[in-house]
């Protein structure tokens, strides 16, 4: 085996990352922030392992997936993930996959960014909430994503009816946790520059999830609501968290049990999508406008 292959092995990289972070943590035993960060890293590493195990098991026990329904919902929405992905395939050396794969390093980096300001809540708590509740939501609407459903044909899939199909694969598409996490970064961004960076990262993540064939457009919309929910938990704003959890759950249950209604009434679907985006934008606006008060040590407005 070549040395470079060994060093690029994901497991070896994970072990090296864990050991280097533990070493860094041990250099200053009094720094609680270091411990929290290493905890977040370890949680991420082990989470991936347990997530794969449970989701693969869940996929095997309940092999019925909603991918065909989600494709039709995209069409009903008027924005098809496959059309966007096809357009993005023309970009030479498409760099968007970097944004998709950069989520864990970005989560670590954003921890440092978010802790620059006082009274900003706990981004670690937001991450933990996301990692625990995300898979539960995946189970409500099990779907794999276009590339796993259609394989090599994912950019030009065959025609099919909007029905639940039997597929082997991990259900991890609806809602998009990538978009949810990117929205957490926006919510926790401290200054103007970081806010701009976070918004750019959110936009790039949305495009990356579509261009890599991991998600449908319809996954991204409840992903935004989910991002507000976990951010609100991190900021201990439980009223807002409850509202956006209800919104996310409504999307999941609506798609699961009422997709025929949504497909039959495209305007209803578009209105709900628009309202969800507006609600997320409103929550973001409230959060950003409350930032000066937060930094001064006042309570968060609900």
């Amino acid at each position, binding site marked *: 085996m070549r040395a470079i292959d060994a060093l690029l092995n994901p497991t070896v990289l994970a072990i090296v990352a864990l050991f280097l972070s533990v070493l860094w943590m*041990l250099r200053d035993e009094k720094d609680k922030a270091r411990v929290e960060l290493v905890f977040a890293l370890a949680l991420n590493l082990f989470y991936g392992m347990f997530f794969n195990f449970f989701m693969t098991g869940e996929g095997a026990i309940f092999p019925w997936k909603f991918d065909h329904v989600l494709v039709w919902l995209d069409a009903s929405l008027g924005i098809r993930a496959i059309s966007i992905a096809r357009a993005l395939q023309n970009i030479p050396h498409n760099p968007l996959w970097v944004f998709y794969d950069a989520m864990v390093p970005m989560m670590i980096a954003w921890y440092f960014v978010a802790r620059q300001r006082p009274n900003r809540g706990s981004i670690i708590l937001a991450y933990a909430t996301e990692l625990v509740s995300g898979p539960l939501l995946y189970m409500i609407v099990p779907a794999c994503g276009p590339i796993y459903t259609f394989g090599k044909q994912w950019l030009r899939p065959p025609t099919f009816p909007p029905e639940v199909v039997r597929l082997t694969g991990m259900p991890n598409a609806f809602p998009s946790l990538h978009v949810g996490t990117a929205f957490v970064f926006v919510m926790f961004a401290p200054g103007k520059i970081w806010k701009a960076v976070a918004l750019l990262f959110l936009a790039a993540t949305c495009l990356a999830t579509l261009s890599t064939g991991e998600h449908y457009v319809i996954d991204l919309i409840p992903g935004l609501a989910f991002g507000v929910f976990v951010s609100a938990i991190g900021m201990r704003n439980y009223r807002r968290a409850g509202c956006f959890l209800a919104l996310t759950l409504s999307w999941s249950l609506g798609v699961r049990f009422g997709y025929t209604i949504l497909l039959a009434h495209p305007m209803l679907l578009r209105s709900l999508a628009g309202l969800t985006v507006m609600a997320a934008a409103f929550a973001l606006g409230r959060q950003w406008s409350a930032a000066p008060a937060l930094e001064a040590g006042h309570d968060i407005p609900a």
Partner: protein
Amino acid sequence: MKQQYDISVPLTAIAYALAILYTVLFLCLLPFNRQTVARRDFIVYWATGQQLVHHGNPYDPAGINQIEHDAGFSGGAGYYMRNAPWALPLALPLGYASPMAAALPWSLLMLGLLVASVRILWKLLGSPGNHREWLGVCFPPALFCVVLGQTSIFLLFGLALFLRLHKTRPFAAGAALWLCSIKPHLFLPFVLVLLLWIVLTRGYRILAGGVAAMAAGSLVTAWIDPAAWSQYAYYMRTSVVTREFTPCFGDLLRDSIHPAWEWLAFVPAVLGCIWALAYFWPRRHAWDWLEQGSLLVLVSLLVAPFGWIFDQSVAIPAILFAVARKPSQAALAGLAILYLLLEVQVVSPFPLASAAYLWPAPAWLIWYLYARASCRKAGVTPMPASLSPSVSSSC
């Protein structure tokens, strides 16, 4: 004034309840179920005891396997004692009883040693009086060790005695470390620092105690099985035990790069030893085995080249040290959650040799540092006068 609700109280109560329920149910079931007796690690020690009593080879996989199958064991080959010959006297008494008769006393012995170890450590920490020593008694890897009939509790007992006696009775403290030598691979950075500390403090009585206990153990071994050393050497040359996967990072690294390169499993241990030296040297004049030694044990567990979940019983001194320092409610709640996760995992379909058991070793270390950092911030109540200055000054 409104009192803040402490979430750590119900969480620890659930963790205690589950741990006690598992253990009591198991111990009640043990004397009545042959399959339960034969399926546990205990059967290995019992079969080894049988071989010793009948002057057989305790390191003969075929012979051991036959005895285990006769006793009701239904697994494959390769289920035999891997400890060095000086551990053989521990298995000898089991050879004089049937597996059904020996199983419960063996588990009760482990439970007794666990309780004794926790009491020794808690007293050493000043018996804070908040009944949190139960976090030591209900430590899931230790109870798992009791349930399986494993020997890691001996290591814990040896470590607890060492911590208790190293200042007042160094020879006895050194002798107690003989128990830790049953599984020396779990203590590599710890042993390195211990040797260096002995040289620097001229604490040669500890070394003498350790050597004397090893010599006594080896003499007893030579008496019960004169060929034990050559049998062990042959077994180590021919067995593939060093290529077996156990849930530790050394083995994961080896299997990820090249499973045949056995030395790769020792890379984390070598790095751990280098860290241990760098950690010890600036602190060598005020070295405290209870405080700094706890961290050293946790790092030793993390970098061990071979180890199972129940081997983490030796983390109890570190856990109790942090608990006695009045950590924050969040830290205690976190510890209870770790206990609960592990209690759920041990009844899940993950086999013991699964990589799913990799997380507890870093988890104890991260929790320990978090608890200590949080207790510093929250402020600490004065420690009892019975504690040594080096202990009470910390955290």
